[in-house]
């Protein structure tokens, strides 16, 4: 940590060389992946995809047999549909990102497929689940749209570094997306959280897209400013303290997070963005002091908001005593959700009740969105939960691995940002559902019901695949992207 060597940075030297031209002999850098020897692994991906499609189809059959004692009618269609979508995605990866990581697409497909099955199963609970509208069809449609988005990224995003040129535009877009929901009235059933933009019956959750767009901004901004942030610092008590003016951006982001929290009641998004920024700042500068600052500021912010905003206080109280809502006189604003989720998990036990045989509809209307993990926990048990966490862990680690392998600093920062955003989101959602931390109200990537979430996460995976493709591609240097206003030089 103490020694910072600029020459260690492969991306920087890579760009310099790339301006010279075409195929250059690559030097072996200190990344863990050696591109020259890496086979492209597309067949591995195909084999894994087969499982990723087959498993949800079997789960689908399982639900049908458990609830109706017969195979569901739509089983073949569902299997073929998912299979076709996955196959198209795979073929396009073969064509446009042949050296991409082989694990990410199958994991995303599997989680998405399982999510659809669980949503379908809860649709079948009918009136038991209050406010239950059939959602599996929609989720399937959104999954198709998500994969279409994935394909679009595959085909049209020739090089992830193109995005670097939109650093400041991204900032503006992200800010608009984040601020927009505050101007739309919250519905009664949103429980005060203003995280949707609604036009008629159509609604999107801009926070999910802002996650990616903001990562573009962070990566672009930090790539430019990281030297200033890292080197122009004073040493104080063994820590490198940044100069006052370099503190500016982190304070701005901090304030922004607090504003989201205060005006949109959205604890999760606020935590996600601030955490994401601190992580990326740390990676860009290698300064532990940023982590310290980040922690201090988030604790300070949390205390500040918790002591003033009632809805945050309610959430913390609900976390400390989830069963208080069941008392004859529940505290104001109390919700049974966390208690119901814990009872669902506990009733599931180690092996679970089996798909279609649990009663997670007791969690009420959020059983297939924010609390879908509670539904999985009851029906698949601890065993299934561990498998799901391992899948997320793998997906995140493959993303971070991509960051390590990436050859340019923008790609590294971008990949770290996307992967850790997913890690933070998974932690915040699953932590809330299992009672580890206060509930924040975000969706579980891929599993949970919600179009915005599915589309955004498919795009996220597509970008990671593109970065990993360019990182693992042997010999050929990626086309430079920062060549001037005319776009990438060909």
């Amino acid at each position: 940590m103490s020694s910072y060597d600029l020459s260690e940075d492969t991306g920087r030297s890579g760009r310099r060389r790339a301006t010279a031209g075409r195929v250059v002999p690559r030097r072996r850098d200190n990344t863990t992946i050696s591109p020259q020897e890496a086979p492209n692994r597309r067949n591995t991906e195909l084999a894994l995809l087969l499982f990723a499609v087959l498993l949800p189809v079997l789960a689908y059959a399982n639900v049908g047999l458990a609830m109706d004692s017969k195979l569901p009618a739509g089983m073949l269609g569902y299997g073929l549909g998912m299979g076709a979508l996955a196959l198209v995605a795979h073929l396009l990866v073969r064509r446009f990102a042949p050296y991409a990581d082989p694990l990410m697409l199958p994991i995303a497909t599997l989680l998405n497929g399982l999510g659809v099955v669980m949503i379908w199963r809860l649709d079948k609970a009918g009136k038991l689940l209050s406010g239950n509208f059939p959602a599996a069809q929609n989720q399937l449609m959104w999954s198709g749209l998500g994969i279409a988005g994935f394909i679009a990224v595959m085909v049209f995003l020739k090089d992830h570094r193109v995005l670097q040129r939109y650093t400041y535009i991204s900032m503006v877009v992200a800010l608009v997306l984040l601020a927009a929901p505050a101007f739309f009235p919250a519905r009664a059933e949103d429980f005060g959280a203003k995280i949707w933009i609604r036009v008629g019956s159509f609604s999107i959750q801009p926070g999910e897209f802002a996650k990616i767009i903001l990562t573009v901004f962070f990566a672009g901004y930090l790539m430019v400013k990281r030297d200033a942030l890292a080197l122009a610092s004073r040493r104080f008590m063994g820590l490198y303290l940044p100069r006052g003016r370099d503190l500016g951006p982190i304070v701005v982001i901090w304030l922004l997070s607090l504003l989201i929290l205060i005006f949109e009641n959205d604890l999760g998004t606020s935590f996600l963005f601030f955490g994401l920024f601190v992580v990326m700042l740390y990676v860009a500068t290698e300064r532990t002091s940023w982590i310290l600052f980040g922690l201090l500021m988030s604790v300070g912010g949390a205390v500040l908001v918790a002591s003033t905003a009632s809805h945050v206080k309610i959430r913390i109280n609900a976390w400390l005593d989830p069963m208080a809502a069941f008392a004859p006189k529940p505290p104001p604003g109390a919700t049974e959700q966390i208690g119901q989720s814990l009872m669902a998990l506990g009733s599931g036990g180690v092996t679970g009740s089996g798909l279609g045989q649990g009663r997670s509809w007791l969690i009420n209307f959020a059983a297939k969105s924010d609390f879908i993990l509670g539904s999985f926990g009851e029906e698949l048990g601890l065993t299934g939960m561990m498998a799901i966490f391992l899948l997320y862990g793998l997906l995140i680690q493959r993303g971070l691995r991509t960051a390590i392998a990436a050859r340019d600093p923008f790609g590294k920062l971008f990949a770290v940002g996307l992967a850790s955003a997913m890690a933070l989101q998974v932690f915040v959602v699953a932590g809330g559902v299992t009672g580890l931390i206060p509930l924040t109200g975000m969706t579980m990537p891929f599993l949970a019901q919600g179009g915005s979430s599915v589309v955004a996460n498919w795009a996220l995976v597509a970008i990671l695949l593109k970065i990993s493709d360019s990182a693992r591609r042997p010999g050929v240097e990626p086309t430079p992207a920062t060549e001037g206003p005319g776009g990438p030089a060909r």
Partner: protein
Amino acid sequence: MNKPIRRVSIFCLVLILALMVRTNWVQGVQAESWATDKNNKRQLYDRYAHPRGNIIASGQPVTKSDFVNGLRFKYQRSWVDGPMWAPVTGYATQFQSVGLEALEDGILSGSDDRLFFRNTLDMLTGEPKRGGDVVTTINAKVQKAAWDAMGNKKGAAVAIDPKTGAILAMVSTPSFDPGSFSGFDGASTKAWNDLNADPNKPLLNRALKETYPPGSTFKLVTATAAFENGMFQGVDDATTTPEPYILPGTTTQLKNESPDERCENATVKSGMDQSCNTVFAKIGADLGKEKMRAQAEKFGFNSTIDIPVRSEKSVFPDSKSLDGTAQDSIGQHDTRATPLQMAMVSAAICNNGSLMQPYLVDQERSASLTTISKHTEKQFSQAMSPSTAQKMQDLMVSVVENGTGKTARIPGVQVGGKTGTAQHGEDNAGLPFAWFTSWAKGADGQSVAVAVVVEDGSQNRDGISGGRLAAPIAKAVMQAALGK
């Protein structure tokens, strides 16, 4: 930048690990307590997810488990003839659980540990889970006779097999159909609320849970105490009963029911035939509180009796004064008895003094009809010597042959009984309770002991007497039990 990225990966792994540890804690360590939390409705739904076992009388189930295939509840409890069987079965509903349905819930729902092996076997062989059955001692014919005989009178009737203690019938009126509130819909809630609001208290199991002043039927206990303590040698021994009899330590004259009764210095038998208050009040006073209490307790007074449903405690009080004991000895004042208790008095007399522990459950068995437990008969107490029992039988037969209990006579069957007309209320202002307790012995060695109480039997208090209201009911029950 790779070093911080590696650290970030470790951090992300720690986040996932934290989730895994937490989930292991919730689903592994804490699982049981969340699964059985009182707010976890899954337990309730589970109970109705498979057919509940039945309560059996005379080989036939009196309960049913209807497949209703509701969204939450798959099965619902119903009864073959709810009002008649309600005191026997009790009920286990969302509102309250009482009686056998509550006490035998483990067997009926199939969750009893003794069913664990069979349940596991069923699970492995793919058999659907079913609860076990509870076989009662009730004789459906006797139960029906008692129910029909009670008609729309308010009260209770209990019949016991004196030789074993098996309860043959247990009826309480007015009654209710527990099936009317065993569901989970609005109709059930309404039915439950209506039953609770009913001033006639239909939910009360009067046979076990209500205590009444036993009135003159308690004179059986007093006479037993007199013989057991050697006060008289035979039923024709004369008592020393003054006329009028002034309650000891007071100036109050104790009256007999009708002025023409010849109670002055009557024999024990004629005192019993005429149900002389003065005769037995004086015997009680002469014996004293301690001897009377000792005898009453041998019959089961002053303790709860679990059959296994718990009956209310019948009371022979610890009276402060001798005049109180005198009145207690004729079943007035503070003496209280359940119908079950008075049936036990007759049963002990009928069974030559040996009082058998009354019981309602003969067998518990699994869904595959294997017996899990079977009742073994046991003596509750030796309530009196066989010779005293013989004298008491003579007295009771005489009551039916010559005295107040003529309405209970059954041709060709030896019947012994005792009437009671118990005053109650402030200054005895309430309509009296009509009592009759009796036993009958058939020619084939069969026997039965019965107690019947009728509340508010008539608007007119002169129309109320144990002989007129309660004895015919007891007669019908005895006839059914002996097949006459």
